[in-house]
């Protein structure tokens, strides 16, 4: 383990960008490519938006926690809420599945495309934790 951080903030829409900037500045410490950085920002954006929109039903009173761990050639990102959780994670992760007609149901698909692995722990009524990992191309 090279470095880590933990960031907590209320479930307000403004903070999706805050999470993105912090994770990007953190990931930049191991000199990723621009595309790798874009991928990480995209994945964090999806997971944090989900915590706010679904986990807390757009209420600004929840707390979202984002953690990052940097290894020599990989990053792990954790996004956690103590919101309403999901009954069926498998179904939730299917492309184009959404419980909200205004949304695309592509959040988890994007996370899976952007990162090398995505796993989700969720307990109805207790909350959700998304764990994502990305390996960086070796250039050193």
């Amino acid at each position, binding site marked *: 383990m090279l470095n880590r951080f933990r960031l907590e903030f209320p479930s307000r829409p403004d903070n999706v960008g805050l999470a993105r900037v912090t994770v990007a500045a953190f990931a930049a410490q191991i000199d990723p490519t621009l*595309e790798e950085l874009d991928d990480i*920002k*995209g994945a964090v*954006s999806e997971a944090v*938006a989900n915590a706010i*929109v679904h986990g807390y039903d757009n209420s600004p009173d929840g707390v979202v926690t984002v953690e990052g761990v940097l290894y020599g050639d990989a990053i792990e990102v954790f996004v956690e809420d103590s919101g309403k959780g999901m009954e069926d994670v498998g179904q939730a992760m299917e492309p184009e599945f959404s419980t909200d007609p205004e949304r695309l149901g592509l959040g988890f698909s994007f996370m899976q495309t952007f990162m090398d692995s995505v796993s989700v722990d969720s307990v109805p009524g207790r909350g959700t934790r998304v764990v994502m990992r990305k390996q960086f191309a070796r250039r050193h």
Partner: protein
Amino acid sequence: MLEIDSVGDVLVAHLHGEIDLKVSDALREALDRALERLPVRHLVFDFGDVSFIDSTGLGVVLGRYKKVAGAGGRLGVTGLRPPVRRVLELSGILRISQEFSSWTEAVAVLGGGGADA
């Protein structure tokens, strides 16, 4: 976040900055208001000044397109930087839209109705 041009029957939405949950509600409302008020048929999104867009933002884009598609309207996109192009591809929006090298070209082609004939 948004500037709107309306040329003939084409509405051009110039988006700015990072398009995520922070701006999605305001963006949706502004676009819906414009679509109601203006006698437009086609919709063009100019992403030239967009550095980031996530699935929340793409939902707003796609939702507005669905509104105009019902009346035979078409979707144009322009100014796609790599991260924006990537998610437009992933979401399938690139398949249902036409890409142009500038918004004025989009207006000329879609507004001219040429490709419609």
